[in-house]
């Protein structure tokens, strides 16, 4: 036996020490996901829908309670892999609330005569006999719920990771289920599958950028932990090409996830092709997770070289705002328009990131909360406007909606006004917060561009309002279908929070401000 093998054999392996109570939110959601898989395997088919919905909701609410119980925590746990601090908890709370609303809309069964918005049997070829049989048998793909729970657990870990490898694992855990879910639409299945494939290929592509960036940063600093990189940056004396290229590539990976230009090209296709309830959930929760990770990397690990990455982020923010707002103007599909709107919002959020200050962090967290509520609500409204072919997403089909269904059109108007940033809605408060943070952070030109772009963006939101209230309805059988309590709750909560965060945002702003300190 050689000396090497004997030393390996005799070395004791330290059991990792995990503070289970501190990572409870993620464990609860993961546990619920695993339980969901077991239900798929063992429960009778007719019981699954109710069981899965119950497990998902109970799991999410329990995780939300454990987040609330952890409030005020400020330390790094799990062998230096996970941070439990203000930003983590605020964003985990946001993600869990959006997940509850998202699961409610995904479980909606009374809009489509066939059942949920997801395919009866995702594996069947579109247009095949197998598909017809599955639809005829009235079965549904209840795996949707555990898949969502897996994605949520990845999202919870993503903004909490304090080393880049944990972050990468979280990135994949949140992405893979979403790739699958995006391809499972009940109507227009080919479009949905195409979107899923595109999302998967481009997502894999961006993951490689991220991973290569991690490798370069490790090569530079000898560490994968964010604080280790920060120490290496502050003690550096030069020769930092590795650091800069690594920073750029990690940023590209993260910017892809939050849909910033020029890494946005997947967004419109995927938002349009994916089942609408999933799109709403994805637009709200993925954005929170991705911005959380970006903020942690840029603020904790790379704060020392912010003068190097800020100019690049300026350019990305400007490009993102302009592309999102300008291209949205000519969109003729509601979901594509909302996708470009989400790109523009990513640009506004980036102005807050660039502030590199406590105000920047808190305003971005508030913005994400406000935007998430409006987005889930808006996509939930999109699921209600239907004709015989499913959802009627072409804008011409929304003409005159205000005459036929003033309530639904009025609520959608509220969401559009919030996206446009009109006072007394959450959109105004949150834009105001990020712009003033950017202003104080020395990014005045960026704010001017942001203001001009939001004025342009207001145009296409208003155009939809004009269309709904002032145009003659087209008689192609488009109508508003009454949802069950599930979607009604989601829309009501979205609308109510849009108003509350606009009129009385004080408590939430205060909470975000209190939470805006990263543990280092």
């Amino acid at each position, binding site marked *: 036996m050689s000396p090497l093998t004997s030393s390996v054999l005799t070395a004791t392996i330290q059991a990792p020490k995990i503070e289970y109570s501190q990572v409870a939110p993620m464990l609860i959601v993961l546990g619920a996901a695993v339980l969901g898989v077991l239900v798929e395997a063992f429960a009778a088919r007719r019981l699954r829908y109710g069981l899965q919905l119950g497990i998902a909701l109970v799991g999410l609410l329990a995780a939300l309670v454990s987040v609330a119980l952890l409030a005020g925590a400020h330390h790094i746990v799990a062998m230096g892999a996970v941070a439990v601090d203000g930003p983590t908890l605020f964003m985990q709370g946001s993600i869990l609330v959006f997940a509850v609303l998202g699961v409610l809309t995904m479980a909606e069964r009374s809009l489509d005569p066939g059942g949920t918005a997801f395919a009866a049997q995702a594996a069947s070829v579109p247009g095949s006999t197998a598909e017809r049989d599955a639809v005829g048998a009235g079965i549904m793909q209840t795996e949707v719920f555990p898949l969502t729970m897996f994605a949520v657990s990845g999202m919870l870990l993503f903004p909490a990771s304090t080393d880049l490898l944990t972050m990468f694992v979280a990135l994949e855990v949140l992405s893979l289920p979403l790739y699958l879910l995006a391809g499972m639409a009940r109507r227009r299945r080919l479009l949905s599958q*195409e979107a899923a494939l595109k999302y998967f290929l481009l997502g894999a592509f961006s993951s490689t950028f991220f991973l290569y960036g991690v490798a370069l940063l490790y090569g530079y600093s000898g560490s994968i932990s964010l604080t280790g990189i920060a120490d290496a940056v502050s003690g550096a004396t030069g020769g930092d090409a590795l650091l800069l*290229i690594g920073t750029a590539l990690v940023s590209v990976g993260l910017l892809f996830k939050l849909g910033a230009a*020029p890494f946005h090209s997947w967004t419109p296709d995927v938002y349009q092709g994916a089942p609408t309830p999933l799109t709403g959930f994805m637009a709200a929760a993925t954005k929170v997770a991705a911005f959380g990770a970006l903020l942690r990397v840029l603020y904790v690990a790379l704060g020392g070289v912010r003068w190097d990455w800020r100019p690049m982020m300026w350019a990305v923010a400007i490009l993102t705002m302009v592309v999102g707002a300008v291209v949205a*103007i000519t969109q003729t599909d509601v979901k594509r328009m909302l996708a470009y709107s989400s790109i523009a919002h990513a640009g506004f959020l980036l102005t807050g990131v660039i502030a590199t200050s406590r105000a920047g962090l808190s305003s971005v967290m508030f913005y994400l909360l406000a935007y998430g509520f409006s987005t889930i609500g808006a996509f939930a409204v999109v699921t209600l406007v239907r004709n015989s072919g499913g959802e009627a997403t072409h804008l011409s089909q929304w003409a005159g909606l205000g005459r036929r269904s003033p309530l639904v059109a009025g609520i959608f108007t509220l969401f559009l006004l919030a996206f446009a940033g009109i006072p007394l809605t959450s959109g105004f408060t949150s834009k105001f917060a990020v712009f003033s943070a950017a202003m104080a952070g020395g990014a005045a030109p960026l704010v001017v561009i942001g*203001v001009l772009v939001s*004025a342009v963006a207001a145009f296409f939101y208003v155009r939809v309002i*004009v269309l709904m209230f*002032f145009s*003659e309805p087209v008689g192609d059988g488009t109508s508003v279908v009454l949802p069950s309590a599930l979607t009604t709750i989601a829309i009501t909560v979205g609308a109510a929070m849009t108003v509350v965060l606009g009129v009385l945002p*004080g408590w939430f702003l205060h909470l975000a401000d209190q939470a805006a300190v990263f543990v280092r």
Partner: protein
Amino acid sequence: MLHTYAASGLVASPASGVFSLTWLLIALPLAGAGVLLLGGRRTDGFGHLLGNATSWAAFLVGLALFAGLLGRGAGSRAVGQHLFSWVPVGGLQVSAGLLLDPLSMCFVLLITFVGSLIHLYSVGYMAHDPDRRRFFAYLNLFVAAMLLLVLSDSYLTLYVGWEGVGLASYLLIGFWNRNPEYAAAAKKAFVVNRVGDFGLSVAIMIMFATFGRVDFVGVFAGTSHASSAVLTAIGLMLLLGATGKSAQFPLQSWLGDAMAGPTPVSALIHAATMVTAGVYLVVRSSPIFDAAPTARLLVVAVGAVTLLFGAVIGLAKDDLKKALAASTMSQIGYMMLGAGLGPVGYSFAIFHLLTHGFFKAGLFLGAGSVMHGMNDQTNLRGFGGLSKVMKITWLTFGAGFLAIIGFPGASGFWSKDKIIEAAFVGSGWQPWVFGLAAMLGAGLTAYYMTRLFAMTFHGQARWSDDVHPHESPLVMTIPMMVLALGSLFLGAVLGPTGAITGWLEPVVGAASEGGTVLAPTVISLATLALVVIGAGLAWLAYGMRPVPTAVPAATWATVAARRDLYQDAFNEAAFMRPGQYLTRSLVYVDNRGVDGVVNGLAALVGGTSGRVRRWQTGFVRSYALSMLTGAAVVVAALLLVRL
């Protein structure tokens, strides 16, 4: 908030006593609108009564506040009421509050009094409309929003009111939206106003960027430190906002179409109150405009151009309401002109605004009464000789007519004359150009109003046999009589006594006399001569000679005026088409251009991309390549920054 917001050092004291009721002004009509809109059909029976009650109650509150302000010294007539903290965290402090001072008091009285009269009139006018309750709900909503606009103590809450009156205006223009033409009119008003509102919102953003605050106190205190370029930018953006709301050149085109709404709406919103919000905005922002002479000069120019533009359109219009709308545009041009002249004109602009509120509302209600008796017809060529059958309408309309042409002694004489005189103050070319434009406008006004008056009430009757003109019920004529009294005597009460200038002085500064390039008596006499000539020519052409019922062929000038001086054609060519091309080409770049560029790059990248292309189909290839390019640029940018 013990800081001044006006040149004279006026400070708003905290609201106490009767002034703690200020919020009721807005709350009363708002509650009325809420009950009527949420109550639905259940409130049909008493909707019009509730609408009237809340509006009149707001007027009584306004009167009480007015008495309270009168009881104070001139230097302390300003009260601020804090409502609630809107955004109360860290560096962001935005609170919602009200400011009651002599300037807003003028508007409160005008809005609540004229507004209430029009509420009363509408009881009769809308008696047969199945949706009368909804109409009153919108009217109440409008009154609440307009009061919020003039009572807010910051640009942000002003903006909320500004959007609120806009909303009420679109709802009421499109009230009879079963008619697609009317719905199109509402849409046009909406779109044109969006351009103006864009200006106001940009102005607010620049204020916030420069001063860090958007309340009047904070902004006006900051003007002394700000650069003149910034102040000019703010002034120009505020002016853009004002031109949209007040239908001034170049955003005037929506007002004529807005006449599609019910006539009481035209009287209240599109003549007496909302359209004057732009003038309020300019006068309220006087500390900004005083520090930005370029912006102020442009205000004067916009006013002068619009007053002639509106008057020329009015010369040829054959539609009763559209001719009155053109005249509104022109009269607001006078107010803008006055407001742009600075301290010498601010108080006269507001003075003309008040008298105009009375006589133009009276004229519109008179027009409504004529339409009521003539089967909703508005073609002047189908009227004639109505003075015999509609005595009260004839007399009250006549009072408004005398006021608007500036008949000596009537309200308009006192207010318009002062603006013309102020336009002659100064040196260089400006007093001559603006003064003469204002004077010429007075002559044109006399011509088109006399034409309109003669074609409606005099000459031989030209209406068809199935029309039976009759006088309107008392509920409609009483408001008209009250407004007629105001048209005749309000000017004499406020003007020559110096009441209005003294009242407004703490807010807008002293209106110094003198400094005109011509003697004031010469100006007055010349103006009067032009008015007599204009009115005389029109009487000869339309009062003495028979009016053809068919539209006669005309010169190119008349045709241009009938077509609103081609403003729609111009808008289409100048704004709509280039805008469409711009967005189209940008989309082209995003959809195809990026693709093309990326395809070109693909050839360069060579072997790698060739293999990539083989297993990727469609657009994913170009998406991935655009990401690759983006990543390369990001890396290069970071490295370059360090170099």
